[in-house]
């Protein structure tokens, strides 16, 4: 038996080494879970079209940034752009390329009620625990035709650090000085009321199982599950329903050249107020850690595919909001600035 197991071990080692030597161009990326379904579909189509294999792991934006920083992936992905401080902490300059937009929707569970209108002020008060019951006067004022029951409000938040929380709290910070002072924004915050559930499915599941619950969920998740969501009043004063169109609209405002901006509380007239980009992150100079020029070219080719028409069409099919044309142009110009040893990769 000893001989057999040794033989088996040998065979495995040979097989492993063999496939190392073959080495076809395979790209790996890690990061945000938010765009995971879209990325997987787009990568699959890309593989079918070009024969290049792409592996992506949804380990979280933080994991993606860490992996890029440790130089163990070709690209990272994040829902939150790197701050100036974080950028200076990376070993080399990093570029952000947006790939699509998503939003954070406010989901709720009120028997018999399909939609409610909320203003930023009321939303903040609910999540700060100031409005404790559904029959509160402020809710009735906004929704005169809705019969609110005498039911306690149960707030549900994300227990795990997430870009969804970041986007949601970023919006709340922009619309409420009190929220900015007491809780601020971030991937995790010190919630004052409610229960924490893990991941979008956790929050959505808790909301659907708890009468009177209200919480925030990623738009791609709520669209697919058809969860009742609230209309939010945006900066222009209109009550907007979250939809692919209203999320894309948020990207139509002015974006800085490096695309690092939170689209929350956008100026655009028809924008859904809690929307944002998700980015792919790469090093500006692709010659690091023994990377070949071929590998750099393959990486850029993939990202270019992601922002082009074919992939963007896929995004809409799976409930993600495609990039507005102006942003696509910006993305492509960022790609053209990527260098290998100082020379641009895309000629």
């Amino acid at each position, binding site marked *: 038996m000893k001989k057999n197991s040794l033989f088996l071990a040998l065979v495995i080692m040979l097989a492993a080494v063999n496939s190392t030597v073959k080495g076809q161009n395979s790209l790996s990326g890690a990061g945000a879970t938010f765009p995971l379904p879209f990325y997987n579909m787009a990568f699959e189509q890309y593989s079918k079209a070009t024969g290049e294999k792409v592996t992506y792991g949804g*380990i*979280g*934006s*933080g*994991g993606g*940034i860490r992996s890029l920083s440790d130089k163990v992936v070709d690209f990272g992905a994040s829902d939150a752009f790197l701050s100036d401080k*974080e950028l200076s902490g990376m070993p080399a300059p990093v570029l952000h390329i947006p790939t699509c937009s998503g939003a954070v929707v406010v989901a709720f569970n009120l028997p018999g009620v399909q939609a409610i209108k909320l203003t930023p002020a009321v939303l903040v008060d609910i999540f700060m625990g100031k409005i404790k019951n559904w029959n509160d006067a402020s809710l009735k004022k906004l929704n005169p035709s809705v019969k609110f029951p005498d039911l306690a409000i*149960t707030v549900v938040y994300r*227990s*795990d*650090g*997430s*870009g969804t929380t970041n986007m949601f709290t970023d919006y709340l910070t922009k619309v409420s000085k009190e929220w900015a002072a007491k*809780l*601020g*924004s*971030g*991937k*995790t*915050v*010190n919630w004052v009321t*409610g*229960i*924490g*559930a*893990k991941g979008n499915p*956790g929050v959505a*599941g808790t909301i659907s*199982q*708890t009468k009177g619950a209200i919480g925030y969920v990623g738009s791609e998740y709520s669209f697919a599950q058809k969860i009742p969501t609230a209309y939010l009043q945006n900066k222009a004063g209109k009550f907007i329903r979250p939809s692919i169109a209203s999320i894309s609209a948020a990207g139509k405002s002015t974006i800085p050249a490096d695309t690092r901006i939170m689209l929350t509380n956008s100026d655009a007239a028809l924008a859904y107020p809690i929307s944002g980009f998700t980015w792919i992150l790469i090093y500006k100079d692709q010659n690091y850690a023994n990377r070949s020029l071929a590998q750099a070219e393959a990486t850029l080719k993939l990202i270019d595919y992601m922002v082009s028409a074919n992939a963007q069409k896929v995004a809409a099919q799976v409930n993600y909001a495609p990039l507005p044309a102006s942003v696509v142009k910006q993305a492509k110009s960022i790609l053209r600035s990527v260098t290998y040893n100082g020379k641009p990769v895309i000629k």
Partner: protein
Amino acid sequence: MNSDKILKNVLFVASLLILLISGAMIFSLVRGSMLSIHQFGWKFLISSEWNPTQGDEHYGALLFIVGTLMTSVLALVIAIPLAFSTSLFVAEYFKGTRLASIVSTMVDLLAGIPSIIFGLWGFYILRPFIVSMGLSPQGYGIFTSGLILSIMIIPYATSLSNTTISMVSNELKEAAYSLGATRLEVILNVILPNARSGITASYILAFGRALGETLAVTMLIGNSNIMPTGIFSTGNTMSSVIANQFGEASGLQLSALVEIGLLLFVITTIINAIGKFIIKKFA
């Protein structure tokens, strides 16, 4: 003689692996916690704040330590009678029968179920049950997660126990029976003392499993950073908070999480030592 010496050396060198792994692990954990240790010092152990707000960051491990201890101890307390009975069932009372074989296989299957599935089962089936019993308004809490944990660790508690109980020499048992002992007396006076080492080892391994379990607990405990007020209140555990926030943490928060990991190491050591000491005293 030469081959004996070689073998002894090989065994010794092999044993170094465990030390190497643990040592390197502690080294990495300590290095990662340095930032947090410098910032908070001893207060980290007694502070129940966990505030990631930028500019006002303040972290403390007390909440999580309490939550971990409550859930794991509860899990063990529930699991031991169940696991011990099942072990006796399989390895003594019905030893060698088809029934025992089926039961032990079924229990072993539990070990292969991913913790996320346990979490979901607890969410969809256990939680409504607890709500309907009126024990808790939402069904989340220390009790729910402790209960799920206990089910998860039963295979660890039975597996080694089964082996050691069934390996107690027949001669010893027969000698006792021939003196007129009842089954219970044979179990208490012959089997238990002889299999005690293996049984204890399996409970310690089961407890370790409970301490380190993350996903199932995090889905059922409510994840509220409050001091648990009772067995049905919500709370948070060390493994949970690490798994929840690690992916997105950086800087001081990351360091605080790593320090919690280090603390878990320390607490496991202390509790294991206490447990072994108590068992020695009971000898």
